[in-house]
């Protein structure tokens, strides 16, 4: 079954006004269950817009988005996905545990169920001793792990992430990538992941979707043949570098076309 299906989707902001923006033009993408797909491209290529269309935080101007075989709107109402952003977006007035419990509160779970699930999620992100801390007492990487725990608290089949590690330093970032893969393997969650970083996209993904701006569209899809098990050695493998090169060429080809030059440097 396909987890996410995007068919001929276009999104136009401020249609008919002088500041009209063609954010996405005729985009099609299928994501299989359990798959990890990254969206990469320069600013303005519509990767965040595409993610928000899947999340039903935006409505497409034309075309159709389905999530788990339902309309995106129904999937949102059923909380079929969890979401994480560049800012961890934790609530400073809630303890870590209460932050994780928030989506469950909104689903109307009772206190015992919520508390048991919060324990489970704290265990999953390996921060069991921090439940009663407040978010600002945690480092940036820990806050992002709590945000992931919150996004997965209701056990959604799909996780949507918008540059979640963009504000972290390089070392923390690589550690978090490993953590995310471990968590997704443990839960079998499908992930759609927006990023600016080529190595990050390749390390995490089964497929990397390269996008280009004006109008936002998909220009290339790179299959990453690194297998399921990934660790620090993965970053030294030839297949890793080959995939990075393929993504980079996808991005560069678009850049060369954009400035009107041939791809003559190679």
């Amino acid at each position, binding site marked *: 079954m396909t987890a996410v299906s995007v068919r001929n989707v276009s999104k136009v902001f401020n249609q008919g006004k002088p500041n009209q923006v063609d954010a996405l033009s005729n985009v099609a993408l299928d994501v299989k269950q359990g798959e990890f797909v990254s969206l990469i491209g320069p600013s303005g290529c519509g990767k965040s817009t595409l993610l928000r269309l899947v*999340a039903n*935080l935006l409505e497409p101007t034309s075309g159709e988005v389905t999530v788990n075989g339902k309309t995106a709107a129904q999937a*949102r*109402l059923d*909380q079929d*996905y*969890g*979401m994480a*952003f560049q*800012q961890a*977006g934790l*609530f*400073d*007035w*809630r*303890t870590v545990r209460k932050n994780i419990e*928030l*989506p469950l*509160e*909104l689903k109307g779970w009772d206190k015992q169920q919520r508390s048991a699930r919060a324990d489970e999620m704290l265990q999953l992100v390996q921060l069991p001793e921090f439940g009663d801390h*407040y978010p*600002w007492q945690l480092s940036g990487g820990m806050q992002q792990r709590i945000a992931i725990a919150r996004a997965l608290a209701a056990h959604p089949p799909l996780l*949507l992430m918008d540059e979640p590690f963009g504000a972290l330093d390089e070392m923390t970032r690589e550690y978090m990538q490993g953590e995310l893969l471990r968590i997704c393997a443990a839960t079998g969650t499908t992930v759609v992941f927006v990023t600016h970083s080529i190595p990050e996209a390749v390390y995490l993904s089964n497929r990397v979707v390269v996008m280009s701006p004006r109008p936002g569209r998909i220009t290339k899809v790179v299959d990453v043949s690194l297998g399921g098990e990934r660790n620090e050695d993965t970053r030294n493998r030839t297949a890793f570098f080959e995939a990075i090169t393929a993504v980079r060429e996808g991005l560069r080809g678009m850049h060369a076309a954009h400035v009107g030059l041939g791809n003559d440097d190679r």
Partner: protein
Amino acid sequence: MTIHRLTMLLGKVVPAILFGALFLGVWEWAVKFFELKPYFLTAPSSIWQQFTTNFALIRGAATVSGTNALVGLVAGTVLGVAMSFVLSRFGFLNQLITPLAVALNAIPIFVLVAVLNNMYSITSEIPRRIMVTLVVYFIVLVNVARGLTQVSPTHVELMRSYAASDVAILRKVRIPNAVPFLFTSLKIAAPAAVITAFVSEYFGGSQNGLGSRISSNIANSKNAAAWAYVLAACLLGLLFYTVSVAMESLNRKGGVKQ
């Protein structure tokens, strides 16, 4: 840890006390040494002597002004909070009222008390309390409305991803976000309430509060007594401010980052 904190506290308090004592000492010495007349400057010792001998009267006057300030503070806060909810719900009202509130804050609106005095009997405390209410109302309104509307876009997006209703967003995001704004506004409004209560007394009405006692004592050339009432006014303002700061720090212990 506790000993460390105690020394930290002493390190902050001791210089302030020393400076205060030095200031009073120089003041006392200057009055004696230059033989300043009481109508020009009164010595701290004679102010203190007036303060202790007239303590019952001063306490009575402080109770009158303090009650006016407190009633106005509570009423203004309740009204301000209520109105901020209405404003945050209806954005167009916000655009109408906020500039007005800011403009009214910029002018000394307590002169309105002269008008209010004409509406009520001469011995009524109501005009003064209305005046305090108005001043507090605008301070609380502007701040709490800001707290209700200026929420993190990530938080709103997150709540929408949970298909949360507007009421749920209000309860779980907007109101908790506005709480620190409320305490900040109280920290500004509490001293302002006391000042407004004093100044309102200068526009007629019963001669029973600290403000009117100060002006009548000066009119009778009883400068040391006037200063004693000024001292009481300072203490009352400090009391209001200290309580509002204590409330804010209690709230912060409940988990809200400064």
